[in-house]
């Protein structure tokens, strides 16, 4: 039997998973992503450490495989936006600024002044933010001129790993669409943007479709990893876009809800959104890994994190309340949680609100609202919030209203949450039980490039993972509809100014405490 290797370089961990062609996992290995945090809001990776960690996970996975020579293909999915500059020998000249690092705000401001946010949106489909790759390149140019001068190529993380495996560098459309340098609807590097920003076009690798064959594993990489030199390496893509592929979400009219520490809704589009309002609402878009389409994406930044926070609160930091127990308690509270409601903005607001200073709130508390109702209120708040992110998208002409939702990720194991979500949205939720969907999507792209599958549709059809459906409860749906329309949507606009004031006051107090510690 043929095996496919999918690699997933994520924010918190790096995974290598070996799959059979039907998508079932044979072996896997994971390591924490080695991250350096020199100061608040900064974070970087060292390219060699990243590569070493990938090597360890590949070797770890292969150690569990009966015959590594059966591995026919490799592809890499990674976080987007972050990349590395390489010199003429292909050696890194810089560290990798993490995707979420915001040190690049001055560069982003400069681009806004020089080119203009609306112009950039028109070209790239992206609403200008510091995280996009072009800002990172400009930062290296300004702060590390020597390293920049020696650089001959810029590769995103997935591209860099593929490059170390096969010696060829290329960027796929899904990762390219997150650089601010790709013209989204024409899927080419945007020469005007590059010229106006002063970045040499020759730094950028070819743009290809995910699943394009790049080469075979080099002898050196084979020695380092244990992969056979016969294994074909193909272009992978952006992690959550690969996850969507694994779930078979590629066409307009579909919607994917992925539930992890963060949560996201992912809606495929035939053509990009043209209204810059989408960016101001906090949505973002990009190209699919394959098939020529696009997607719009709305993140919920503290979804699983809200549940984990509550577990720590109701248990202790060292011994959080068991997940099952939390769900069991939530299930005891009635629909609507006795009027308690949770706004899950523990770190910031979620689309359609672009507000990094928003905070969480638990309101509607009465003496009757106990542990059970608080637990349920948190789950209901997550479901309302997710629906609140989906609903405004339906106003855009490019969005085809979905009739059901596909769901992946650890959060889908929470049956109560899934049934609340089904009732809140009024849509069936098809829960896909794929093992490590991101790595699987990468493995599928590798399989396509190596000819294991004849086409994308064939790859999706080959998947044997389980799927179950959770349907709305009509009675609950009516109650949730009422609460959502009449209460939930009022919460953020009312609470936001208070959240801002609290944040400001906290900063003033912190400042004061620095000057004059107020110990009791």
């Amino acid at each position, binding site marked *: 039997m043929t095996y496919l290797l999918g690699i997933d370089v994520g924010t918190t961990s790096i995974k290598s998973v070996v799959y059979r062609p039907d998508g079932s996992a044979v072996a896997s290995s994971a390591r924490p992503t080695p991250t350096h945090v020199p100061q608040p809001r900064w974070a970087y990776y060292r390219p060699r450490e990243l590569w070493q960690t990938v090597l360890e996970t590949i070797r770890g996975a292969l150690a569990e495989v009966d015959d590594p020579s059966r591995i026919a293909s490799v592809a890499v999915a990674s976080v987007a936006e972050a990349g590395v500059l390489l010199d003429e020998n292909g050696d890194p000249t810089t560290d990798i600024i993490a995707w979420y690092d915001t040190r690049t705000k001055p560069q982003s401001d400069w681009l806004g002044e020089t080119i203009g946010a609306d112009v950039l949106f028109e070209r790239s489909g992206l609403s200008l933010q510091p995280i996009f790759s072009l800002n990172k390149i400009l930062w290296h140019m300004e702060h590390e001129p020597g390293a920049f001068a020696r650089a001959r190529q810029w590769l995103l993380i997935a591209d860099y790993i593929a490059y170390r495996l096969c010696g060829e560098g290329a960027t796929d459309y899904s990762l390219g669409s997150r650089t601010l340098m790709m013209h989204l609807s024409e899927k080419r590097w945007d020469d005007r943007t590059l010229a106006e920003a002063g970045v040499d076009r020759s730094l950028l690798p070819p743009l290809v479709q995910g699943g394009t064959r790049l080469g075979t594993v080099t002898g050196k990489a084979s020695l380092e990893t244990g992969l056979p030199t016969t294994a074909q390496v193909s272009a992978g893509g952006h992690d959550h876009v690969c996850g969507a592929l694994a779930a078979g979400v590629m066409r307009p009219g579909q919607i994917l809800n992925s539930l992890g520490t963060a949560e996201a809704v992912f809606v495929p589009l035939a053509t990009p959104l043209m209204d810059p309002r989408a960016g101001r609402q906090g949505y973002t878009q990009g190209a699919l890994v394959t098939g020529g389409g696009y997607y719009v994406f709305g993140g919920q930044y503290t979804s699983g994190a809200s549940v984990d926070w509550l577990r720590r*609160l109701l248990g202790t930091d060292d011994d959080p309340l068991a997940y099952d127990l939390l769900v069991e308690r939530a299930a005891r509270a009635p629909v609507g949680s006795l009027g308690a409601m949770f706004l899950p903005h523990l770190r910031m607001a979620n689309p359609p609100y672009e507000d990094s200073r928003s905070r969480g709130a638990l309101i509607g508390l009465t003496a009757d609202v106990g542990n059970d109702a608080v637990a349920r209120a948190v789950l209901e708040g997550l479901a309302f919030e997710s629906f609140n992110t989906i609903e405004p998208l339906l106003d855009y002409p490019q969005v085809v209203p979905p009739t059901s939702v596909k769901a992946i990720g650890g959060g889908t194991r929470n049956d109560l949450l899934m049934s609340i979500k089904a009732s809140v949205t009024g849509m069936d939720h098809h829960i896909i039980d794929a093992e490590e969907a991101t790595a699987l999507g990468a493995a599928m792209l590798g399989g396509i490039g190596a000819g294991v599958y004849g086409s994308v549709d064939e790859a999706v059809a080959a998947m044997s993972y389980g799927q179950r459906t959770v349907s709305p409860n009509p009675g609950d749906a009516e109650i949730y509809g009422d609460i959502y329309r009449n209460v939930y949507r009022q919460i953020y606009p009312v609470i936001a100014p208070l959240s801002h004031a609290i944040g400001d006051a906290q900063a003033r107090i912190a400042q004061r405490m620095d000057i004059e510690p107020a110990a009791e």
Partner: protein
Amino acid sequence: MSDHYLGLDLGTSSIKALVVDDDGQVKGTGTAEYPTSRPQPGWAEQDPDDWWRATLEAVQQAVGWSGSAAIASVGFSGQMHGVSFLGENDRPLYPAVIWADQRSERQAQAVTEKVGAERLIEISGSPLVTGFLAATVVWMQEQKSSIWWRTKRILSPKDELRRRLTGVIATDPGDGSAALLLDARWRNWSPVLLDAVETPSIVLPSIRPSAAVAGEVSVQSGSELGLASGTPVATGTGDAASGLLGAGIVDAETLFLSLSTGAQVMVPSEVFQPDLAGRTHTFCSALEPGPDSPGWYQMGATLVAGMAMQWLRDEVLRLPPAGAFELMTSWAAQSGPGANGLLFLPYLVGERTPHMDARARGAFLGLTPQHTSGDIVRAVMEGVTFACRDALAALESTGAEPKRIVMAGGGARSPLWRQMVADVFGLPVFGLTTADQAAIGAAILAKASVRNESPIDIARSWARYDGGTEPSTSRTVMYQDIYAMFKEAYEPVARVSHRLAAWSEARPRPALTPRPIRKQG
């Protein structure tokens, strides 16, 4: 052997009897309970015969404990606002309807409309709410006219008890104003209010100063109680005014903050200046008005205080009750002023002063993933403290300018909470160490009635406090900042809360499920 005084406090569920010596030392205590019957939802009645039986038990205990000290005089404190109805020969016609009774809501509104809300407060010092004597009397006229026609006397609870002890019928300005039939400025029954409730002044007792002798222990009750007949009995006052006296709060510059299930803020006042918006109550104190003798006190009520901590302990964190508050406050001490940016609105059962909003609800605002149980507990303590500060703000609008705080109740036992109160109010806090201050107040009135000494001097020399807690200037500045935010939060959050209240009130209540699981440590 020095003289001893007997202070009796007829509370809502039990009577307390204290034998106190001339220096304010408690030499004997006794207590006994009585039931409240609830014949219909919202009704609350007590049988004055039960009061009397409990009095016998409590007095015998207290006197027995004190080694049968000679009692020089007796004083009274009692639950306010309630009423007992007496017929021919002072026979009770109906159970006493106590302050917690909700039957008279419609009558209270009708009387308020008849007199005019502001005018009613201008005369009586307070808004008329359900359970107050004036409203209950109108209910009786409308619903039980056969009883009302036979009624010869209406008496406040402690006055009924004193009648049984002495045979004398009287009341004091404090309970008169709590009945809401007094012209509280002039300390006389108000013709306007009596007219409004269609009650002839003949059914009302005469008004005597709290610290005056109202009568003597009768032969029969003396033998029942084991007291010498002829022992002088002071008029006494309502339990709030008596508590102020027992806590030594006899000047307009000291705020009394009682943090129990709910919180009360009270401050004596030398002028009668009620809050026409009805957010606070102004009642007559146990003192006769004069220079340096505040004849009134203003009172605001925060509905949720210790209740929020209890809710957190039992409902949210589910801690085993033993030692839980100490554990929780030790967590809170790890957090800092402002609870790391977490704000709690404590309106779990609505709020009285200053918002008068039964449909307000509680909220945690500013949540981040970093917030710990310690931040939660601290935010709850701070939220309750801000709500008390809000109640003071309502008192300040009618002239209160306290310079120090005396704190009592469960919350006063926590050093962290005392410090927090000092910091939030920006005033020194003295924890009251005198227990049973209402019964002590009754003993003070007993002593003042038979000695040539003012109740003010006795109260000052008897009250006991801890060493005091000074506010920290830096934390006071921080808390001013956070308190401003707390005040700002009420209105917008209430808008959403009212929608939630409307929504959840329209739904049937679920049956309570057992909750066996408790968090450890």
